[in-house]
Each structure stands twice: as C-alpha cells, then as structure tokens.
C-alpha cells in the first residue's frame, strides 16, 4: 500500500518536474532523514531544544543551499529565517510554559497502551519537546516564504538597478502579501484535517463546547498554526531588508 503510493509519487515527481523535480525529491528525503534523526536523538536523551536548533539549521541548509545554490538570495533568506525563529522562540517558549501544553493531549492520554503498558517517565521534558514541535512544524512554511521574498526582490533589483532600499523593502512586502493569504490557508487546512477525527471523537465523548474551546488539543493545534502564520509574516520584511543590505554591500565591493 505505502510502497505503491510512494512509487506513484516518485514517478509523478520525475515526469512532471524533470531534473528539478528529482532534486527536490532528494532534498525531501534528506529532510525526512533529518527529522527521523532528530527524533532518534531526542529519544536517547539529547536535550530536545539543542536537537531542534541543529535540525533546523541543517534543514534550512538543505532547502536553501542544496536546492537553490549558494548566493546572496539564499544567504539572506537563511539569515532572515535564523533571526525570525530566534526572536519567536522566546515567545513560543513563554506560551508553552505559561499554558503547560506539553505532553499528551486529553485523547492521547487515555489511550490503553499509554495508561497500562508504557512507562511514561521518559526523563525528557515534554515542555521542551512541545516548543521543538512548534518550531519544526513552522519551519517549512517560513523557509518557503523567505525564499519567495528574496528571489523576487532580487529580480526587481536586476530590472531596476538604481532602486532604493526602502523601495526594495516595500516591493518585498508587496510580494509577500500576495502569497501570505494562501500560505495561512494551507496551514489552516493542514491542521483542520488533523483535527477532524479528534473533534468527532470529542463530540462522541460528550465534551461540552466550553471544555473543547479550552482543551489542550485545540490549543496545541492552534498555537502551531498561529506561530506558523506569525513567523511567515515577520520573515517578509526581515528577508527584504537583509537582501537589500547584502546587495548594497556586494556593490561596494
């Protein structure tokens, strides 16, 4: 079943995407391996936040430098993502700490295997793991956004070499705002799909609306989505500014 679907995906990517498709498929496998490796490292007790920093760095490198080459577009995107995620990390950790949303949610926690068969004292702080989850799940969208902005601003600069820095930032924001709507919707639907089963389960368990709105499950999904969208918006001006500065520096040399 999974093998056949995998083969279909492989062939479709190669037929539709050609050589570039194959490259993005390899990058995808690289990211999948990195994700598995970081899960493995977290499981053997390496601090999860350290693992996340390493994994995010490596994933950004694969997505930006392997797929799109090393140039000022990818470098400014890289720095922009690092800056945005570092700033957001403080907020993410604060929210996770304040609301205690680490650990299993209401439904996972009543699973038979978790309750009776497994020892759940892992010696791993699930709060930190939750912060890692939020960061990792937004990473794909943020990388996408920042590269879109830098590539387009670079094109604008090529067509109009005497453009000022403020104009570059403005055009970066304009391009970003064209994309942001669909990006937010992509994230929304991805989480809605994940939550569908869960909502129906809660309804069957006669969860009242007020408990549902305050539940850990809803909060976990919403927080990932909100921070994903916020990160995507924040990264737009930062990427545009960085590209403008870097292009200016390059000209000086």
């Amino acid at each position, binding site marked *: 079943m999974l093998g056949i679907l995998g083969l279909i*995906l492989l062939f479709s990517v190669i037929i*539709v995407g050609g050589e*570039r498709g194959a490259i993005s498929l390899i990058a995808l496998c690289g990211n999948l391996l990195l994700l598995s490796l970081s899960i493995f490292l977290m499981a053997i007790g390496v601090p999860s936040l350290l693992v996340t920093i390493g994994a995010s760095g490596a994933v950004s490198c694969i997505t930006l430098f392997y797929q799109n080459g090393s140039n000022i577009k990818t470098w400014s995107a890289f720095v922009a993502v690092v800056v945005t995620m570092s700033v957001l990390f403080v907020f993410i950790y604060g929210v996770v700490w304040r609301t205690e949303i680490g650990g299993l949610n209401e439904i996972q926690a009543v699973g038979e295997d978790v309750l009776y068969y497994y020892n759940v004292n892992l010696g791993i702080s699930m709060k930190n793991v939750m912060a890692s989850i939020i960061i990792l799940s937004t990473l794909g969208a943020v990388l*996408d956004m920042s590269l879109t902005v830098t590539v387009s601003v670079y094109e604008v600069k090529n067509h109009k070499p005497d453009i000022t820095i403020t104009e570059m930032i403005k055009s970066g924001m304009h391009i970003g705002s064209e994309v942001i709507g669909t990006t937010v919707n992509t994230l929304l639907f991805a989480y809605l799909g994940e939550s569908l089963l869960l909502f129906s389960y809660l309804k069957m368990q006669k969860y009242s609306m007020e408990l549902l709105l305050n539940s850990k499950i809803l909060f976990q999904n919403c927080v990932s989505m909100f921070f994903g969208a916020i990160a995507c918006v924040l990264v737009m001006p930062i990427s545009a500014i960085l590209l403008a500065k870097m292009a200016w520096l390059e000209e000086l040399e």
Partner: protein
Amino acid sequence: MKKKYYIFGILYLVAIVFIMNDTWLYTTPIAKLTKVETTREVEGKSTRGTAEKKYSQKMQGIILNGEKKGKTVHFSNEYTYTEMLKQKYHKGDKVFVSGSGIKGVKRDTELVMLLGILIFVLVEAAGRKGILTIITVGINIMIFAVFFLKADNTSNVVAICNKIVILFAIVTLVGLNGVNKKTWAALLSTLCVLVLIMGMFDLVIRHVQELDYSTMEYLGSIDNPDDMFHAEILLSGLGAIMDVAVAIAAALGEIVKQKPDVTFLELFKSGRKIGYDIMGTMINVLLFVFGSGLIPTFLIRMNNDIRFVTIVKLYIPCELCRFLVESIGIVWTIPVSIFITTIFMKLSVKKRRKSC
C-alpha cells in the same frame, strides 16, 4: 493612520480583559489558584535509567462562578519531570473543577491574545489582502463549525466532507482572488485534482491489502474509520492544492495578458517552470507539519523498547499514507491546472477576437 492603531489597541485590550473575566459565561465551576505549594518527592527512575524528579503540589483556590462562588477549594496534584500525562499548575491558573479534582485549565485568554497578535501582523504586513485572509479563514471556520455541530453519529461523513470541501474551496478562492477567470480556473483545477487523487487512492486500496485503520490515532469508538480517513485526506491536502492551483493560474493569466498570441506549448512550458519551484516547497511544508506532530508518539514508544522501524510499520501507516496521497495531489495539480487554465484563457482570448 495613527488612529487605526489606537482603535485596534483599545479593542484588543477590551477583548483580553473581557476574556479574563468571562467566568460567568461558563456553566462548569472555575477556580482560580491562589496558593500553590510544590514539594519534591523521592526520585524515581526514568525509562533510560536516569533519575526522574517527582513533585507533589498542594493548591488552594477560590471558585469564581456558579452557586459556590467565593468558596475556597483544595486540590492536590502529582507530576514528574517529564509531565507526560499530568501537568504542573502555576499560581494564578484558572482551572475547571469537577468534584474534588481538576478537569482542565482555562486557556481561552492565551488563545485570544495570540489570535490578536496574528490579526495585527497580518493586517499590518499584508493590508487589504490580510483583512481578506482573516475574513475567509473566519468564514471557513464557521462553515466547519456549522457542519460539525449539525452532524451526528449516523450521518455520512464523506458526503458531508465533500460538501464542506467544495464550500471551502469556493470561499477561499473567491475571497482571496475575487470573482474572475483565474479564480474559476483555479477552482475547477482544485476540484479535478481532488477527484483524481481520491479515485487513485480508492483504486490502490481496492487492489492492495486493506489499510489497517485501527492504527489511526484518536480512534476510540468511531465506527466508520475509513470514511473518516477519506475526509481527513480531502481536508488536509486542500490548502496546499489550492495554493499551487492559484499560483499557476495567476502566472499563466499574466502571460496571456502580456502576450495574447502565446502558443499552447509555450504556456505549458512556463507553467511547468513555475510548477516545480512550488511543488518541492509545498510538499516540504506538509512534511514538517505532519512529521513534527508525530514526535511524542515516537518518543514514548522508543523509550519503551519499540524499535523505530516497528513504530513506522505498526503505528503510523495511516499518517504516512495521508502524507503520500497529499503529496501526489500537489504534484498532479501542476499539469491539471496548467491544462485547465490554458483552455480557460485561450477560449476567452478567442472569444474577444471574434467580437472584435
């Protein structure tokens, strides 16, 4: 310009203050923790043999609503460093009370705070587009809520979901792009791709061994897991597929506008070029959303001596399958939407010529 910020700031503050004091809206008794004493207990052993710190908490709270308003209540709680099943409580937390225990934490204030920040940055960065995004997302959530509340256990999940998905697609595409030819082209391509991938999925499932739905998370007592699974695939891939369809429709529309006599083959080529740039990144976005959600499942099981490969084989095939089907959907969107958009644009160019 400045006035706008003041209005928003005041509205935001009012909303937060309201939510902080909305306990009278709730029927479940809510207590505010006024005193929390945390003491360390004897250390235990974690699954990997390291020391696991254990804590116990004694708490005092005041009931904020209902008949017992103003009464003092006492709770006790135990948690470990991992905080897997039980959490730590802080002073000032508001909790739902049931009997003599805590049923859950009131998290609506934080939810509204984050929502406010999101709305602010969206409107600030994207202007009119940002407002449109918020409105479409709001309408979509309302549609979801209405169908979700109306449905009962006997209703057909797939049929409902088909309706919801079509509504979602129409609302999102029209809301974000307005009523024009590009929107209709993108809408038609999105629906075509959804039909194609669901058909493909059914075909594969019919000829290979059945997928084991019992591994689906949250299964509980749901008696129609395969319907649920179909609904999940339809919904979670929708956003990404629409994204690709819109990008291609917009780009090809622009080309036709600049150069009305462009040939079919040329359009196809430039569509492909745009397509494979988005394809990789969109699949990546889904990969991270899907992959990072699975981390807790893996951590618990790997620490209870279940091997990584075994978990992949036994516990997450449904999630993997969903991810693969969605990725295939994203890839197929490219040729489908190029084809449909080209036909749409070409037909309209021809019509215009005839009328001239």
